[in-house]
Structure formats: C-alpha cells, structure tokens
C-alpha cells in the first residue's frame, strides 16, 4: 500500500532544500536588489534585462549548468557537491534568484525615488533611508519569499539532475513523483502531487493575503 515513511522523507527533503535555497536567494535579492535599483552604472539596463529573462529559465537548464560546474570534470568538482542536497540548493537558487531579485528591484524602483526625495528634505542620512526602505513595506518581502519558495519546491529537473534522486538523501517530492509514477506506482505519485498542490495553494493564498495588506 502507501509507504508513508517514504512520503514523509521526500517531503522533508523538499522542504529542507527549498527553505535554504529560498532563504539564500532572499537575502541576496535584497542585497543586490538594493544596489542595482538605487545605483547608476553603465551596464544597468543590461543587467536588469538579463535578470528578467532568467526568471523563466527552464529547471533542467539550471540543473545542467550546475551539473557541469560541480561534476568531477568541472571546475568545482573537487568540492564533492554532486549528488548532495547542497547541489540541489544551488540549482534551485539559480532558478529562483532572478525572479526574487527582479521583484525587489521593481519594488525599490517604485518606492525609492519618492522616499529618497522626501527623506533627503528631512535631512535623513543614507543609512536612515536604507533602513526605512527595507523596513517599510513588509508585504513585498513576504510575497517575494513565497513566490521563491513556491517555485523552488515545485520544480522538477534542476534538483533531480544534480541531486541524483538518491533514496533518503536527495529524492525530494518531485523526484519521487517521477520515479514512483514511472514504476507504475500511481498511488504515491498522486499523493505527493496532491501535497505539492496543497503547498502551492497555501502559498498562493498567502501571497494574496499579504498583498492586500499593503
């Protein structure tokens, strides 16, 4: 029948990997988002465009890129990252970082000019402005986190390629759905699929809930 311990294991791996990748991507999104949105530099338009186009990078492409880098024959092969959860985290990071940073950049470009002008007239320092910018609208951060996490936890292809779908170690929900369905074990596939959809639903509700709170 249904092996629940297997299912829980897959869920736990998915959550662990996707939580970490989302957190990393989030922190770096704020850091780079602020820099890119507020500073003028020569290649600014190109950077923003490239980031925008990377938001729809196919997961398998992200997986392939990471694979080429961390495989033994690649430049970072010595780090022994292939077939580990860390590799999955990196691959998912590549998928979700572009969209998260783009969201942050858009938010800052929307909010920053007015905020900056008025705070400058008040005599605020750059630090004050930064502080208010970051702490003012918490809704955008929640939205960004949820969007990133949703993407990360439901992707198939990136984590599978670099993780190897190894039992107990890197076989996350999507990898298990693929494997069990191919085995003909439809029950597990459907169960995990339902759980994934539920997670997506919760995230979707979360995003809309916090959007209206602005």
């Amino acid at each position, binding site marked *: 029948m249904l092996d629940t311990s297997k299912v829980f294991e897959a869920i736990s791996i998915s959550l662990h990997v996707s939580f970490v990748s989302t957190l990393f991507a989030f922190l770096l999104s704020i850091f780079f988002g602020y820099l890119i949105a507020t500073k003028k530099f020569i290649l600014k338009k190109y950077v923003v465009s490239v980031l925008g186009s990377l938001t729809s990078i196919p997961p398998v492409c992200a997986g392939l890129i990471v694979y080429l880098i961390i495989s*033994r024959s690649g430049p970072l092969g010595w780090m022994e990252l*292939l*077939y580990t959860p860390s590799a999955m985290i990196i691959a998912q990071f590549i998928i979700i970082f572009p969209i998260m940073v783009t969201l942050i950049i858009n938010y800052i470009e929307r909010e920053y000019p007015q905020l900056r002008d008025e705070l400058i007239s008040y005599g605020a320092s750059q630090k004050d402005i930064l502080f208010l910018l970051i702490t003012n609208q918490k809704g955008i951060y929640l939205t960004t986190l949820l969007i990133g996490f949703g993407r990360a936890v439901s992707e198939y292809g990136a984590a599978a390629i670099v993780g190897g779908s190894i039992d107990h170690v890197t076989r996350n929900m999507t990898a298990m759905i693929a494997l069990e369905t191919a085995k*003909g074990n439809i029950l597990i596939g459907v169960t995990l699929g339902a759980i994934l959809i539920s997670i997506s639903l919760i995230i979707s509700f979360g995003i809309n809930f916090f959007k209206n709170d602005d």
Partner: protein
Amino acid sequence: MIKTKIFFLIITLFVSNTFAKDYIIVQSTTSTANTGLLDLLSEEFSLDTGIDVRAVAVGTGTAIANARKGDGDVLIVHSKVDELKFVQDGFGVERYDLMYNDFVILGPNNDPAKIKDKKNILEVMIVLSSPDYKFISRDDYSGTHKKELSLWEESGLGIPKDSSYIKSGSGMASTINIANEMQAYVLTDRGTWIAFQNKNNLEILYENDKSLFNPYGIIVVSPKKHPHVEYEKSNKFVEWLLKGRGKNLINNYTIEGQKLFFTYN
C-alpha cells in the same frame, strides 16, 4: 553583522561535503532502481558497515559516461561489451559478474503479431520489424537499448526505418508505459516488469530464449584515473555483494513471490 551571518551560512552549506566522504557513489542502470533492489542493497550495506551508498540510477550509457568522468566510485550496468571496454581503457579496475536475469518481449494481450508461437528471438525481431506492429525502443544507450540494437543487427534487418518504430528516449518503466498506451511491443528486463505496478494491457509474449540472457556487471572505478575514488569502501561493497550478505539479499529479492535477479554460483 549581516555579512558575517551569510558567510557562516554558506560555510555550513559546504561543511558536510568538504570532509572525507563516508559514502560511495554508485552509478547504476535503471533496472536495479525500478525494481527497488538498489535501494534495498544501499540500506542494508549501510546498516552492516556504516558506509552509506548513494546510488544514482541513470541508465547504462550515462552511468558509464559519468564513471569515466569520475562522478562515481562503482559502476553497475548490464552491457558486457561496454563494461569490458571500460576496464580496458583503464577506467575500471576489474569487471565482476554480479547477477543476471533475462530479457522478455512485452506486447498487447491480443498479440497481433503472433510472436507467442515463434521459436527463436530472431524470428520475433523479423516479424516485429513490420510497419504493421509498433515497437518502442529505449533509444538511450542503456543496457536494454544496446541489447535491442544487437538483436536487430543479428536478425539481419537492422533498425526499422518506418514510423512503427518509436523512440522513447526514456527509462525502462516510462518506456513500458508508452508501450501500454500505444499497445506496442517492447523489450524489457524481467526484473523491471515484475516490479512494474501498472501492468494493464501488456503481458510477456516471448521469453526464455538463450539469446535474451541479461548479465549485470560490477566494476570499481580505477583510482589511477580518478585518485579521489573511495577505493577501499567500494571494494568492501563489491565483496559484500559477491560473497557477503549482499549476495543473499539479491537471491532472496522477490516481488509477489517471483525472483527478479539470480546470482552466480
């Protein structure tokens, strides 16, 4: 403050990996995974020795390519010709016979090509080459695919060129699914079929032919080519499989009372 926190987070990401590995990486064919045998052997070996086995089931062709690049410590595939070449080229230390079963031909219950009555596999291939009957090929350089190709060659006809020959480019189980949907014929290892849970409208129509013998080999990747290989741990694994409790586990592995793999004695 934030910068140092991030720095340490990144470090913890990698810490678990930069010390000596206490696991071995096995590059394997998919039939050992689809049957659940690979997972079982990995778990039991780990229980017995404390050495973890990270088995990646990617298909024979990919497994061999990965092992050549050094992305694995042990190779378990079923394509003897390629296995011997692997050793000959210096990438493997030695090839051992691990276990065997056989290939079978699956097809729709009503067997439109009437291969059930055929006396040898080459006759079957000749019949199936006809555009009237669909045949699904793995087309992924797996052990099964290479077996299929060699059968077409032996039959003298080569690969069918018409649209009734369909290339799935995917693993055994997915390919069986496609054969099921299209009511087509397909070559598979017996193990995957026994373990397959969605048997629907296909059944074994041709089997027990000497030419359909399916031997699996196991090779440790050579530390001469790839110094990082976990040589000792890998050899322990091979020994455990060939002479230790692993051998018993393989022999006693059944699904619904049927044995999937046989060991050599």
